[in-house]
């Protein structure tokens, strides 16, 4: 596949400028590349190496160490079902088996239509909503086989397009400060920051992330808040099912 597009190459150059040593930008740039193509292509990794003065082996050797990076094409949606201890205690393996049956693939496999890749994942840090899964690293908690079926149906129908970007998209919010001003050394001092231009940000890499609401009700409970949050000491909101009842002590 492709090298970085000119726009993404510019984003990469801005990232490189943030760090005292260029190579530190490697992983953030690989995320941009994976966001562009859905996986890390040979041409893309070669291009990243050129930007950083690294060999293809150094780029690939780093990328393949990390679970999030795929050097072969994957489905539009990578569904990672956590089976670690907290989720296992709540039926994660039963959920994973159901997911395999529903999708017709084993962990590591991709459906024939290229829609889903299934993964048997390690702890995703949403243990208050076990068993949980992520789709392209967006969280879905309190799952069971029925909710999982609803989730994949909603994904197929495009009903979750706003919440779940195509595989590879990490952050939809780019840094918009401390960059580009003449004579401005980012290292040590960001300089007088330009005002946040929300309109401009919305045109390119957008800031939908900060607006993501928790109003999703059509599918399995979506735990955008990093699991069950606290409402006061020792008490937490009851997330499942969208109820907001709170137990007061």
């Amino acid at each position: 596949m492709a090298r970085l597009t000119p726009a993404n190459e510019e984003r990469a150059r801005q990232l490189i400028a943030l760090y005292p040593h260029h190579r530190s930008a490697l992983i953030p740039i690989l995320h941009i590349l994976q966001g562009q193509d859905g996986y890390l292509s040979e041409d893309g990794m070669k291009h990243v190496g050129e930007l950083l003065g690294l060999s293809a082996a150094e780029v690939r050797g780093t990328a393949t160490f990390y679970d999030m990076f795929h050097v072969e094409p994957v489905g539009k949606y990578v569904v990672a079902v956590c089976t670690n201890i907290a989720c296992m205690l709540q039926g994660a393996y039963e959920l994973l088996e159901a997911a395999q049956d529903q999708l017709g693939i084993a962990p590591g496999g991709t459906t024939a239509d290229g829609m889903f890749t299934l993964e048997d994942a390690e702890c995703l840090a949403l243990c208050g909503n076990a068993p949980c899964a992520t789709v392209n690293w967006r969280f879905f908690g309190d799952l069971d086989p029925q909710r999982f079926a609803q989730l994949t149906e909603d994904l197929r129908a495009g009903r979750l397009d706003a919440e779940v970007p195509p595989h590879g998209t990490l952050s939809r919010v780019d840094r918009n400060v401390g960059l580009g001003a003449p004579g401005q050394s980012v290292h040590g001092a960001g300089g007088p920051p330009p005002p946040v231009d929300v309109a401009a940000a919305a045109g390119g890499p957008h800031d939908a992330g900060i607006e993501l609401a928790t109003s999703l009700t059509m599918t399995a409970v979506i735990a955008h808040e990093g699991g069950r949050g606290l409402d006061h000491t020792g008490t937490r909101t009851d997330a499942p099912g969208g109820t907001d009842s709170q137990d007061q002590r």
Partner: protein
Amino acid sequence: MSVTDAPRIVTRRLGTPRSWTLETYLADGGYQGLRKALTMTPEEIHEQVNTANILGRGGAGFEAGRKWGMLAKPTPVYLTINGDESEPATFKDHMLIEGDPHQLIEGALICAYAIGADQVFLFVRGEFPLGIERLQAALNEAYAYGAVGKDIFASGWSIDVVVHPGAGAYICGEETALLESLEGKRGYPRIKPPFFPAVVGLYGAPTIVNNVETVSNLPWVMLNGGDAFAALGEGRSKGTKLLALAGHVNRPGNYELEFAKVSFRDLIFDPSLGAGIRDGGELKAFIPGGASSPWLGPEHLDVLLANEKIAEVGTMAGSGSVVPMDHTTCMVRAAWRIVRFFHRESCGQCTPCREGGGWLEKILQRIENGQGRESDLDLLMDVCDNISPGVRWPPAQTTICVLGPSMPPPVASGIRMFRDEYLAHIRDGRCPFPPDRLPGKLASV
């Protein structure tokens, strides 16, 4: 019960609408701690943090102020915040990053000012894209507000902060592996000595690596004083602690509780906290402080949640993750899943961890599948002994980092507590709990 009335320090704003925005943060006194800090000298701040006695909240429990005091001072100096939370059943930093990113930024800035840092890196686990988006958006806001960048709040002090995403590797929570990863390399833990990044850290420069929850306490400490923080808790364990409760309880979740005033019994059974074991079940055992901690049983429920109290019974508070398991839980399967995790996440540098993890996983797998042998218990302990000589607590190690030695505790404590259950698997040729073997391809060795 003894749930205390301690103030919420790090979770106060969570649950309020749009808690992650500057608007919400400023309405609740946001950045006042930083403003106050900037009127003080770095030494005065360090003194307050020493008074507060903030134990590191990442798992090792090392005093933050003491860590800062070890900093060698040739320039540049870096601050790195460890937001690579991946310990199984730990989900507190995830919530703090997504729910209150400005508090994290403010805490990091106070720390950076106190230690004389030249640049700050907020290392966030790559699997937290919403957290990364919220944190980057908050940083953009903080720059525009004048809290980050040049001449912060007209104090003459300037600093840059960078949000750095990880890419999926548990080992990067180990601070030297984190620094390697931040340098754009594989996350291989560094050979010690040098033991402390405060001496040789990022790019070889002195670096402080602090956990998300640790620095999230700093705005409150600045505004209320180290004495007020130290007035909470007891002994070495001061302030509040965020506990991640998961597993077989009715109300899993994150709970911020005063240190040393609440017992495991309170946490698991108090109606306002865990509210007891699900479906009216019985507590069989619990993991007290992250997946690598030795397990405890019901006889230890009255141990208070404080680092030294938990250490007294031969385990650790660790990351603050507590996982109760009910009477339907197979302890072989539980140990197998934890070992499988560490084996998968081994970076592969050290033979005892890379190979020993695979051995432990395979042996536990065959026991669980009814294919175990009587000699397997001795074999398990022998492998554990090769990874962590003596299989004692705190663990000795034959490896560069503590990932390898994290495998023996769940195995050894499980065998010690549930030897008969292990033997029943072997004697009966099947797991006594349904389903009686592991699913799919895992059902055979």
